[in-house]
């Protein structure tokens, strides 16, 4: 796997797992309207993962479903930030949402200028949808910014947020968020919390006979 595929896989895994974690709010969000909106954002993230897996899949001679569901839990490259199970803590969920969208915007902006036209095109498409995710995150930020619980959550998750980006992009994130650069929680082999998510996420796929058509 080359650097481009590695980068795409990290990005795709981030989007898939965050989409999955956000979808855990479906049916239990603080109020009905937010339930629908947040579930819809979760679906968008999974759609972005699909587009990115398609790109990697074409390069690796496999497909999006195989990349999303057929790897072992330790092969996933998602950042620790997206792996955290935050239900039923809405303050931490919104803190992650705000931090992730801010970090994601920085790397997507970079990818839009990538020399690989196909990758740059996918990045541009993703950016158009992420704009609405950011607006959604910002309106919640405005609402919760003065709350103690939110402040504590943002403080706690900040080192995780830095770990989403490559080291050279971290100063940009620190500047946008207005926080000092601290030691980041780096990507590493996923742990227990992720294994439980993986069990559930791949359950149906694993239960079906190999080569099943859906």
């Amino acid at each position, binding site marked *: 796997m080359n650097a481009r595929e590695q980068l795409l896989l990290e990005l795709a895994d981030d989007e898939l797992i965050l989409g999955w974690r956000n979808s855990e709010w479906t049916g239990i969000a603080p109020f*009905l*309207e937010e339930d*629908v*909106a947040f579930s*819809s954002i979760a679906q968008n993230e999974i759609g972005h993962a699909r587009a990115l897996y398609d790109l990697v899949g074409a390069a690796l001679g496999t497909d999006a479903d195989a990349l999303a569901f057929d790897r072992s839990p330790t092969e996933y490259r998602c950042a620790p930030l997206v792996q955290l199970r935050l239900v039923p803590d809405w303050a931490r969920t919104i803190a992650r949402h705000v931090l992730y969208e801010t970090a994601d915007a920085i790397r997507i902006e970079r990818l839009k200028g990538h020399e690989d036209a196909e990758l740059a095109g996918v990045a541009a498409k993703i950016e158009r949808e992420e704009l*609405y995710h950011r*607006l959604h995150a910002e*309106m919640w930020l405005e*609402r919760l910014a003065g709350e103690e619980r939110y402040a504590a959550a943002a403080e706690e998750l900040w080192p995780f947020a830095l770990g989403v980006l490559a080291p050279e992009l971290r100063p940009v994130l620190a500047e946008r968020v207005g926080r000092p650069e601290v030691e980041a929680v780096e990507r590493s082999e996923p742990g227990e919390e992720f294994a439980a998510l993986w069990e559930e996420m791949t359950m149906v796929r694993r239960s079906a006979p190999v080569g099943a058509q859906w």
Partner: protein
Amino acid sequence: MIWEVFRQERKGQPFTHGGSFHAPDKAFADAYAREFYARRQESVALWVVPRDAIHAIEEFPDEFDLKYRRVDGYSIKARLKEARERAGTAAT
């Protein structure tokens, strides 16, 4: 706070009432309206209005039963048929 949504399916068509939802302010209303009424490109434009801003009129008194002011009291079917026959343009 309740917001009413009017949506336009295609350019040039009238806006029709789509439904309503709760949102604490205009920013949330904007986000939710997009998610609920335009996510699948089912609308080309939306009007999102606080319900309080709508002046509703529901009472239309007709104390003296002035039916003759309305057209629905007259059945013109028979008379139209007669007239057509006279004019020789009756539908066959």
